[in-house]
């Protein structure tokens, strides 16, 4: 006798038959009929037509029948609102029943009837039940408030149910407390500002007491609620931690993870010198490991969270590497996560074990997993320098297997290893080249091409290899095309004689036959560079690349701190803050870790103190100018920096600014015209700049014509403002700005624009240490909060007494800006002429002596092109920016200007500027005791003269 019999009637008159049975006089028949109705309902059959008949059965003493009717009501009341009113009376009556089970059942069911008309009838019974003498009824009523709030929030507030609910937090019964907390948390989620869970030490104490006695689910709600509390000092934090730690031994993994969240968060406040801090760290490891022996679904969520914990506090699990070893029958989603954590935990101490495992994994069946394992070997090499050699040989072994996807992955990671350890493992290039033909994935092809281009001088037949790729140029993916373009240009710069044809071919393919704007842009840049100044081209294209950082995929520290506050939630599974994905993101409140308040402000801590602004020590996050240049020109394959770096900083250098402004618009306007003109095959190394304008129309001429405002005449030249921090990157805050120098004082002129929907306030700014000790001389003053769509202009005075650290490039400045929402980082380049001081004029005699005194190898020569000013105009223009002309001579029709300038840190720079009347190209010779500044002085010259 099973319930399946209820499904057997499939005759046409089924509903009719049921109707008759429901109205039968016999109790038993009625009940059977209701059961049949419920059975049909559960499988999705529509039995709503029976509504009045079923409701008629509600008046009964039989509890089972009552429950079944309630089930039915909950399901169909919505579609029959008028009928549902019939049921109200019974509910009201049941709420008065002497049996608390009936009272609770009634209040529970009432809340599930999502019909507006009914809700108002429910308020009175609900109010009574919230104050019921029986805790079972009270706890059920607490949940009912949340239900009602979901249906009609206004009603709940007007009726004062929220206050009653808050009172229940102090209830004597732990179950009631837990449900009140759960209900309030759910309501609070839709009212982030309402401050429903206003926690104070007394209520915290209540919660901690209830924590020990309530059900496992209640413990989860209470722990999650505790995590939102901000203890007033480290002592309070410690006492909460002490009372939460026993939860780590709970059998329910959700309780364990919620407890871990509370501990991870409050630990932030404890001093690291405390004995308790160490004890706590030790206590955290076993429960986390235990989570991994649970069902695979639990393991997955646990692993995603462990991934965060390991990044925040690697010391917790550093001895537990082995538990992350992969079993061959783990589900793939568990395997991939384990692998990720293995790499994070890899260190010199355990690298041998890890490598042996990874090698094992690389021969498994699952393609995705194998790929990731191969990649992981490369990441180990980059992370643990001592293991690099072994990793490379392991990778070579794997390449010998000739398994196609293994070979491809291996090549991709070997490229990264080359970037990390240049000039160490290039002997393997020959082996790599053998596998050229088997590469069919864009990433692997691009990596191989990069290697060929980068080491063109060591590969005899580099030109042949690259040429072979060129045949199918248009069928390649953009990634490969871009890489091929760069590689051939590199090859050309290294072996100019034999590859001229090749470079012309690729440039014309890229610029004329492609409709990909990126490719064309890059093509034009190279072409332009090669044609105007091969020396500069060499410097740019073959520039030394910044080393890639150790950890390529760390979560950005501010995000990590935020995610730590969300351990155990969906946010922790997706590694995104809730605001990024929660439906409608109804004003999600940002959570942040509490500041450390312990006695010793531990400076040795590797983690960033979350309070205040700190731009230092985060090289992986700020796209440095070096990365930027590299990325633009040839390093597309490099490790992911956060977002497209071109958008995050402005550059005053000619070559790069082309991309930002001129070229884009040029391409847009002129693309058809250019396609047709066809006659501008680049003429490497011999181009005459004046002719450039002709084939391209006016467009190219504009390239150097930085449109936009020209600086004021009273001070030195001020570049137009550019966007430094786009709104996209900074949660709605856009910052654009420029630097200026007027009457001896430097300032950073900023425009802050609020493109978000909320008001911004509490702005602050801080600079990282930089080459010339630039620092804000006053705090960032934004007087009123910045309303949405408003902007404010601020001039921030700067001084040069900050701490000094040599940056690369020299004029790189890393800036952190804080507001009430978050902390944002960006970097920018400042033009060097803001550092030229007013007393930079040298005595003639002194000039001559110094010029002779500085060794000739310190002299640097530059070309300033396309400048049509005469000597006097040049002289006065430069003087405005504190470059002083000491003497002027005329030698064989050429004007020679001898100039001097002094930097804020006392470095003198001497210059000789040669101007030929017929030639718009000036020659600038710079001599300085610190030759590294010359290049930037030259840039300053160029910027000043061209504007």
């Amino acid at each position: 006798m099973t319930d399946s019999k209820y499904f057997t009637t499939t005759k046409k008159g089924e509903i009719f038959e049921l109707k008759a049975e429901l109205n039968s006089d016999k109790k038993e028949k009625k009940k059977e009929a209701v059961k049949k109705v419920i059975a049909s309902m559960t499988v999705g059959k529509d039995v709503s037509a029976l509504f009045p008949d079923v409701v008629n059965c509600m008046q009964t003493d039989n509890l089972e029948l009552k429950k079944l009717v309630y089930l039915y009501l909950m399901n169909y009341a919505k579609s029959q609102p008028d009928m549902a009113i019939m049921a109200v009376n019974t509910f009201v009556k049941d709420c008065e029943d002497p049996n608390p089970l009936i009272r609770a059942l009634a209040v529970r069911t009432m809340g599930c009837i999502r019909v507006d008309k009914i809700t108002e009838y429910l308020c009175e019974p609900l109010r009574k039940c919230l104050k019921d003498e029986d805790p079972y009824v009270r706890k059920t009523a607490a949940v009912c408030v949340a239900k009602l709030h979901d249906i009609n929030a206004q009603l709940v507030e007007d009726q004062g149910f929220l206050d009653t609910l808050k009172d229940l937090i102090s209830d004597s019964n732990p179950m009631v407390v837990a449900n009140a907390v759960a209900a309030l948390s759910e309501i609070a989620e839709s009212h982030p500002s309402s401050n429903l869970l206003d926690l104070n030490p007394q209520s915290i104490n209540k919660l901690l007491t209830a924590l020990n006695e309530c059900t496992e689910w209640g413990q989860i709600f209470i722990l999650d609620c505790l995590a939102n509390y901000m203890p007033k000092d480290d002592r309070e934090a410690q006492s909460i931690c002490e009372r939460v730690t026993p939860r780590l031994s709970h059998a329910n993994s959700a309780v364990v993870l919620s407890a871990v969240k509370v501990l991870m968060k409050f630990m932030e406040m404890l001093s690291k010198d405390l004995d308790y801090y160490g004890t706590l760290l030790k206590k955290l490891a076993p429960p986390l490991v235990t989570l991994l022996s649970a069902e695979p679904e639990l393991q997955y969520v646990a692993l995603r969270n462990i991934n965060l914990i390991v990044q925040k506090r690697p010391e917790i699990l550093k001895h537990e590497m082995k538990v992350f070893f992969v079993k061959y029958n783990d589900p793939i989603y568990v395997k991939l996560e384990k692998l990720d954590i293995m790499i994070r935990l890899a260190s010199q101490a355990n690298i041998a074990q890890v490598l042996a495992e990874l090698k094992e994994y690389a021969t498994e069946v699952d393609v995705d997993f194998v790929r990731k394992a191969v990649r992981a070997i490369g990441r180990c090499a980059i992370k643990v320098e001592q293991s690099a050699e072994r990793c490379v040989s392991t990778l070579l072994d794997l390449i010998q297997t000739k398994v196609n996807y293994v070979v491809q992955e291996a090549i991709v990671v070997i490229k990264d290893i080359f970037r990390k350890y240049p000039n160490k493992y290039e002997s393997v290039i020959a082996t790599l080249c053998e596998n050229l033909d088997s590469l069919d994935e864009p990433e692997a092809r691009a990596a191989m091409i990069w290697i060929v281009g980068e080491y063109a001088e060591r590969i005899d037949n580099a030109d042949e290899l690259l040429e072979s790729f060129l045949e199918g140029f248009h069928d390649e993916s953009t990634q490969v095309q871009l890489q091929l373009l760069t590689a051939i240009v590199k090859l050309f710069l290294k072996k100019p004689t034999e590859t001229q044809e090749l470079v012309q071919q690729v440039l014309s393919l890229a610029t004329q036959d492609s409709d990909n704007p990126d490719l064309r842009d890059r093509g034009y840049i190279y072409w332009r560079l090669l044609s105007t100044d091969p020396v500069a081209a060499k410097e740019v294209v073959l520039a030394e690349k910044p080393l890639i950082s150790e950890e390529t995929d760390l979560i950005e520290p501010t995000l990590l701190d935020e995610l730590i506050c969300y351990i155990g939630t969906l946010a922790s599974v997706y590694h995104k803050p809730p605001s990024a994905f929660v439906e409608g993101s109804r004003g999600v409140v940002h959570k942040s870790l509490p500041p450390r308040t312990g006695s010793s402000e531990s400076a040795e801590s590797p983690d960033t103190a979350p309070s205040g602004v700190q731009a230092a020590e985060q090289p992986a996050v700020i796209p440095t100018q070096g990365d930027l240049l590299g990325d633009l020109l040839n390093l597309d394959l490099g490790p992911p920096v956060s977002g497209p770096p071109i958008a995050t900083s402005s550059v005053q250098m000619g070559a790069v600014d082309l991309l930002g402004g001129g070229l884009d618009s040029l391409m847009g306007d002129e693309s058809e015209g250019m396609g047709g003109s066809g006659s501008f095959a680049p003429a490497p190394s011999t181009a005459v700049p004046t002719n450039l304008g002709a084939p391209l129309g006016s467009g190219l001429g504009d390239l150097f014509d930085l449109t936009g405002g020209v600086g004021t005449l009273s001070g030195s030249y001020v570049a137009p403002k550019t966007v430094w921090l786009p709104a996209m990157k900074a949660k709605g805050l856009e910052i654009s700005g420029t630097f200026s120098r007027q009457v001896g004082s430097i300032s950073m002129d900023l425009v802050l624009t609020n493109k978000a929907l909320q008001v911004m306030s509490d702005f602050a700014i801080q600079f990282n240490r930089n080459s010339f000790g630039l620092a804000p001389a006053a705090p960032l003053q934004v007087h009123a909060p910045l309303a949405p769509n408003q902007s404010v202009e601020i001039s921030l005075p700067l001084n040069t007494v900050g701490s000094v650290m040599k940056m690369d490039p020299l004029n790189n400045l890393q800036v952190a800006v804080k507001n009430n929402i978050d902390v944002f980082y960006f970097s920018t380049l400042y033009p060097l002429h803001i550092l030229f001081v007013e007393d930079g004029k040298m005595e003639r005699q002194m000039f001559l002596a110094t010029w002779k005194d500085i060794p000739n190898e310190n002299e640097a020569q530059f070309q300033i092109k396309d400048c049509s000013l005469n000597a006097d105009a040049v002289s006065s223009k430069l003087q405005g920016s504190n470059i002083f002309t000491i003497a002027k001579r005329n030698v064989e029709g050429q004007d020679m200007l001898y100039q001097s300038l002094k930097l804020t840190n006392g470095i003198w720079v001497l210059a000789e500027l040669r101007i030929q009347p017929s030639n718009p190209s000036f020659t600038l010779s710079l001599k300085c005791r610190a030759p590294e500044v010359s290049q930037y002085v030259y840039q300053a010259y160029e910027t000043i003269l061209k504007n």
Partner: protein
Amino acid sequence: MIHSLFLINCSGDIFLEKHWKSVVSQSVCDYFFEAQEKAIDVENVPPVISTPHHYLISIYRDKIFFVSVIQTEVPPLFVIEFLHRVADTFQDYFGECSETAIKDNVVIVYELLEEMLDNGFPLATESNILKELIKPPTILRSVVNSITGSSNVGDTLPTGQLSNIPWRRAGVKYTNNEAYFDVIEEIDAIIDKSGSTVFAEIQGVIDSCIKLSGMPDLSLSFMNPRLLDDVSFHPCIRFKRWESERVLSFIPPDGNFRLISYRVSSQNLVAIPVYVKHTISFKEYSSSGRFDVTIGPKQNMGKTVEGVVMTVHMPKAVLNMNLTATQGSYTFDPVTKVLTWDVGKITPQKLPNLKGIVNLQSGAPKPEENPSLNIQFKIQQLAISGLKVNRLDMYGEKYKPFKGVKYITKAGKFQVRT
């Protein structure tokens, strides 16, 4: 909180749905099916899937997908734990958690789900309480019900929910008072090609069956409690007592439950009770290979290793296998490529061996990957970690209970790489 639940069988039919708030259309499961298709293998469906308006959190148990729909930020572990609890409850009520059992008892299932969750908040998940509210089906009861018209829904207040010990029902009465403890240890291990242990740990549990009248207060002590440094407790255990005295002190739930689970980590040396000698090789360019595996006992403290079963996922290129077993029997499924060798008991005098020829698809390249051997075994009367129960005392009740402790060691995820 948990919004809705869909139960889906392996062929992709939604055979049960339950909504705790408003109704969510079945079409939301299309996202799940999409992920399922992508995952190919049923085990590989990711447990958390996001859709434009909902999140789907699922578990896979006994060939059924339990797919829950949530709309707001809810701890996924909370949902997953709950879903497992639902599956456990079905198992408990119907003896098996299968599509047929659920369909046969659909009304009870519906009532259970209603009791377990209210508006997405867990309500009653303890088996003791649920059984008081909804009586499990038995053949006798359904016959009686149909004759007398009584129902399987209790009309008492679930009293346990209000007391300080919500896990125990009141008024328990037995004529024979018994308390049994099973110490079950599973060895998870990875053994590498050369036979050395890459990773090994012991996952232990103490499962209890307590049938004691009234409100017994038990304390269980161990000879060597130091072994237990990583433990998860049933809520009934008094944590403070454990911290201070290393004694398990508790008022037990009635019936079967898991008292503690523990992990003996790799820091302590884990004894591996069997060794495996193996040669599995495939010849280049000839479509065959050799297979030779011997299993032997080691360090088993005088106990017999029994119930030995070896399963191997052979590479795809394997067509069939021609083997001879000195003991037990083997089967090879040419579709799934799974080789199963049911060895039985190992006698040290004559070690079981399985060897022969592997036939490969002709022309297929030599398989790159070497299959891992999955070993199962059982050792009665032994807890491999050495854990031993010292004594069990009962307070609070007058009668003298019958006590029993049983030990068993099993292979958990025990893998030998070749």
